[in-house]
């Protein structure tokens, strides 16, 4: 058995998102359906499942996540990941949002 620990690459989510082209739609295509559910929620799975750091729950907040929609890769993981089905997800309007160049 090897004892060599895998080297974790020195890469941040910002490094990764920096490679992605976006067109700002000007308004968020994401939201929560019922903030009260977020207040009750303690597991904050949205923050776990999102690959683009869109969802964050600040320590000093009431539990309703803040949403960095400009980071969104439009995968939809949050929509499936929220156990309360509390993610409001719309497609960004008229060509806005992520523009993959490789895909």
């Amino acid at each position: 058995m090897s004892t060599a620990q895998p080297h974790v690459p020195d890469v941040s989510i910002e490094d990764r998102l920096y490679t992605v082209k976006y067109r700002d739609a000007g308004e968020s295509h994401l939201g929560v359906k019922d903030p009260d559910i977020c207040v009750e929620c303690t597991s904050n799975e949205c923050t776990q499942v999102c690959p683009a750091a869109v969802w964050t729950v600040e320590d000093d907040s009431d539990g309703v996540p803040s949403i960095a929609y400009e980071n969104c890769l439009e995968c939809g993981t949050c929509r499936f990941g929220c156990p309360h089905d509390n993610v409001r997800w719309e497609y960004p309007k008229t060509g806005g949002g992520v523009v993959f160049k490789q895909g």
Partner: protein
Amino acid sequence: MNDGWNIVVCVKQVPDADDVTIDPDTGTLNRSDAPAVLNRPDHNAVESALALREAVGGTVTAITMGPPPAKAVLQTAVGAGADGGVLLTDRAFGGSDTWPTSLALARAAEELDADVVICGEESTDSSTGQVPPGIAAHNGWSQLTYVESLEPRPDEDVLVGKRDVEGGYERVAAKLPVVVAMEFGANRPRPAGLHRKIFAETEFEPVEWTASDLGIEDRVGLANSPTKVGGMDTASPVERERERVDTVDDLYEHIMEVL
């Protein structure tokens, strides 16, 4: 006697500025892959042309100069609501700098009997901002540049523009015909209606005018362009310390040192 204004909007096809990247390995500009799009400031021009038509009546005609694929930017304008389009296309236009370009647009505006010609502030690929004043100068028309908003006075054949001047603004009343350069970001361009967009992209056909149609075949192109690109140089990088600090305290110390 006012039956509306003939409004002409000048648009340009440019490489998408968002897609023009710098290759970090070679440091060179990579714009070959960038798709051709409507020059972003021209969206503001189209929007104010349409808003002006709503205010005074009349028509909006989009014109562009370029090779046949430049038709796409006329489609964008027509999709947004322009009534018609003219494509100035001719090999003779090749290599034109701003002097012949503004001549061609000026002649076309004349043929269209324009009351108002509206342009974007400048193009994102050459950034001169010289074409709108050039059109006005070729035709001896009045001009309004860096315009934040327009206020038509159709009864007086006057267009008032609120201009951004350094440190403030001014309102200038210009006699028709007038050439307007809208300030980038001056308005919020409307999205094209669905059916209009389908029409623009499937049925709409611009008329094509050549240099000789406009009677300027001997006055355009490279030979009639006063400016020549003499050379390209990489902007020389400035040597910097490039020191990364971890704390605000360290940053503060450095700032205090240099002050």
